[in-house]
């Protein structure tokens, strides 16, 4: 659980991410590279393996959405490609407060993952700020866990690579 | 009967004519010819016999035999000529040839004055008996001439002729006597024959006359017999016919009376038919009148149906318009609903705000409550209007449906009425035809009635005529019976 007392984040130079019809925000510092999805085919991660690809819409909304862009997120272990519908750089209009409000406490209590770090209100609509690093890490964990479960290996061994790093 | 009679008559006349042309002479000559043949045959046999026992010299026998044979041949030839019908010619040939043969035999065997000399008279006698005087003269001349010629030839050329020559004057005298006697005999026989023939002819003529008379009488009586039998048969036929006619006339009379009865019945029936036809015609006329009324009614009904159809369409359109209008009202009501909803919401929020403002918001809260109530009432009214509109829509839908169905029913009704009109047209036509037919039947039966009356009249006349005919026929039958009896009697007389 992430601490509730995070300092307000200024929303300058945010990345605006579209997943289907819904729009999210993200810090551009979390993103190593933004590229069209077609270019992922030839790319390999640090281990020389094909790039781990995660469809963000399925992870967050549990619904499929078209994916055209890939966000490369560098975690401590490896780089992950998050597939989204579209990404652009969002220059905050001057009449919008750049202050990101924290998530309401009830929601913070209800959420199991610290994927949303705050809410920014634009044109009366709440835009949620995504913690892409956390999402990438959790996605990697889920993927590894899924693979192990698929292979039928004991779960206790799964923690070893994480603790080692 | 006729034929037989005719044949017998013909045969009879033939016999008669044959006797007239020397029938008996022919028979006689034929007899002589046969005798000559037979005699020559017998002579030949005797000569053969005598020659066999050697009583006569063969040279003499040959002469005799040739003589007999010549007689036979001569007789045969003459017989053939007689068959041809030329009796005179045959007699002449016979006389001449037989005389020559006789001379030849005489000169061979006895000389001029031998007993056989008398044989020379035979042909002349025969000829004299059989033929006319001229023939006798010819034959006699030839015989005598021949005899004398032979005698002269013998005396002149005794060596050339193998006969005994006349040696003396006595012989010449005897020769002359013989010749003369032959001539006399010939003439005598000829005259005898002529007188005999004359007598024969006279008696023959007489017999012929009697014969002819008898034949005529016979013919007449036969004709009488025939006529009598014919009359008898005719009378019998007449009687039978008359009887038949009488009975036929009676039958005819009864048949005519039957026909008359039937025709009278027919007349009665025709009268009934005429009455019925009249009734039918009247009924058809009435039907026609009713039908023309009915047709008018059908026409009016069709027009009325058409009007109803148009009205129904109008109603349908209007109702549909009403439905659309109520739909529009519904939309407006929705808008009102939204507005009062919003108003209600605003009033609520105002009330909440006023409640939050405590004592200061009290007055405002009253206004808010009023607005809220107004909104509530508006909502309520809108809801009621919506309900009413829903009902109207239901009603209009039902009305449209009903109007459509009504239209269909009206169309069906129009069609039925139209069909009824057509049927009535047909009935009208039929009724017209029926009326016409009734009139025609009436006319025809009237004609038939008068015709049958005429027939009855004619039949009565026929019956009368038949009765008269029957009576006449009966009389005729009686007369025929009498005639038959007379004919029978007549027949009997003729045959007796």
């Amino acid at each position, binding site marked *: 659980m992430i601490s509730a007392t995070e300092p307000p984040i200024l929303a300058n130079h945010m990345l605006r991410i579209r997943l289907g019809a*819904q729009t999210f925000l993200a810090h551009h510092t979390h993103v190593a590279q933004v590229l069209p999805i077609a270019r992922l085919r030839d790319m390999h991660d640090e281990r020389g393996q094909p790039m781990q690809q995660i469809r963000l819409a399925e*992870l*967050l*909304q549990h619904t499929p959405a078209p994916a055209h862009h890939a966000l490369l997120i560098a975690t401590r272990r490896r780089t992950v490609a998050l597939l989204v519908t579209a990404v652009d750089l969002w220059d905050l209009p001057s009449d919008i407060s750049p202050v990101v*409000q924290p*998530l*309401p*406490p*009830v*929601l913070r*209590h*209800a*959420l*199991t*993952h610290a*994927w*949303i770090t705050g*809410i920014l*209100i634009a044109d*009366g*609509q*709440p835009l*949620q700020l995504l913690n892409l690093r956390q999402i990438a890490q959790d996605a990697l964990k889920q993927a590894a866990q899924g693979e192990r479960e698929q292979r039928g290996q004991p779960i206790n061994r799964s923690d070893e690579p994480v603790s080692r790093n | 009967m006729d034929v037989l009679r005719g044949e017998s008559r013909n045969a009879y006349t033939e016999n008669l004519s044959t006797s007239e042309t020397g029938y008996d002479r022919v028979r006689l000559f034929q007899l002589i010819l046969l005798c000559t043949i037979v005699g020559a045959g017998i002579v030949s046999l005797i000569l053969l016999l005598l020659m066999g026992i050697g009583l006569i010299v063969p040279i003499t026998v040959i002469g005799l035999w040739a003589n007999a044979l010549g007689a036979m041949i001569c007789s045969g030839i003459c017989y053939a000529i007689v068959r041809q019908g030329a009796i005179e010619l045959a007699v002449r040939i016979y006389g001449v040839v037989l005389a020559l043969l006789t001379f030849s035999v005489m000169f061979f065997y006895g000389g001029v004055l031998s007993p056989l000399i008398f044989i020379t008279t035979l042909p002349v006698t025969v000829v004299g008996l059989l033929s006319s005087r001229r023939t006798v003269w010819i034959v006699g001349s030839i015989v005598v001439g021949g005899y004398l010629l032979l005698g002269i030839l013998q005396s002149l050329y005794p060596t050339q002729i193998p006969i005994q020559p006349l040696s003396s004057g006595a012989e010449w005298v005897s020769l002359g006597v013989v010749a003369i006697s032959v001539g006399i005999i010939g003439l005598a026989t000829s005259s005898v024959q002529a007188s005999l023939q004359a007598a024969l002819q006279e008696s023959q003529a007489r017999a012929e006359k009697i014969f002819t008379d008898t034949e005529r009488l016979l013919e007449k009586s036969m004709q009488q017999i025939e006529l009598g039998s014919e009359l008898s048969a005719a009378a019998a036929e007449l009687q039978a016919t008359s009887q038949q006619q009488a009975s036929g006339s009676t039958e005819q009379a009864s048949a005519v009376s039957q026909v008359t009865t039937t025709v009278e019945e027919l007349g009665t029936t025709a009268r009934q038919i005429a009455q019925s036809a009249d009734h039918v015609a009247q009924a058809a006329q009435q039907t026609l009148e009713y039908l023309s009324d009915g047709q008018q009614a059908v026409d009016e009904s069709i027009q009325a149906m058409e009007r109803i159809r148009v009205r129904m369409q109008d109603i349908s359109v209007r109702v549909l318009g009403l439905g659309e209008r109520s739909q529009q009202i519904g939309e407006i009501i929705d808008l009102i609903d939204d507005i009062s*909803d919003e108003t209600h*919401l605003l009033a*609520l*929020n105002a*009330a*909440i705000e006023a*409640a*939050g403002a405590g004592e200061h918001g009290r007055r405002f809260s009253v206004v808010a*409550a009023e607005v*809220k109530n107004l909104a509530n009432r508006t909502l309520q009214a809108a809801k009621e209007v919506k309900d009413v509109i829903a009902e109207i829509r239901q009603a209009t839908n039902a009305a449209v449906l009903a109007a459509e169905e009504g239209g269909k029913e009206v169309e069906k009704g129009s069609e039925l009425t139209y069909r009824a009109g057509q049927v009535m047209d047909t009935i009208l036509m039929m009724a017209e035809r029926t009326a016409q037919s009734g009139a025609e039947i009436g006319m025809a039966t009237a004609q038939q009635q008068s015709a049958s009356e005429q027939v009855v009249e004619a039949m009565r006349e026929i019956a009368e005529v038949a009765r008269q005919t029957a009576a006449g026929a009966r009389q005729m039958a009686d007369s025929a019976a009498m005639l038959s009896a007379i004919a029978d009697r007549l027949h009997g007389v003729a045959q007796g």
Partner: protein
Amino acid sequence: MCEQAEAYLLFRVADEHYALPSASVHEIVRWRAAVPVPGAPPILPGILVQRGVVYTVVDTRLLFGFATTAPERATRYVLFHEDEHRLALLVDAVLDLIALDLTHSEAIPATLPVARARLLRGVVHHTDLLVALIEPPELLAALYAEM
């Protein structure tokens, strides 16, 4: 208004009527689509922004143990606060602002399910309706307990 009487907001969830003290209520708004928050449970279908304030939507049908339904014309959000919490209660209809005399409140019927009974203070007869009284602290507590 008499001294004992207190203003309550009367609303309907399913076929039951509830009342919430109007003092905690900020505003009532029509239903509009809330922005879903990834990973949130169904009882919290999303967030709303009203007048610059973020409200967390609470599906009262699920909270009260009913099956959730599609929003209708009368569906409303009741925006209210309790301490620092800003909540938007998703209700089937808001009927009125009424004054209730709590001295005549009755005990909660024993037949009521625990899911509802735990957040009720009592029941009151208003006109011909039986109205259940909701207290915001209990509601919040029930919400936390739900997760």
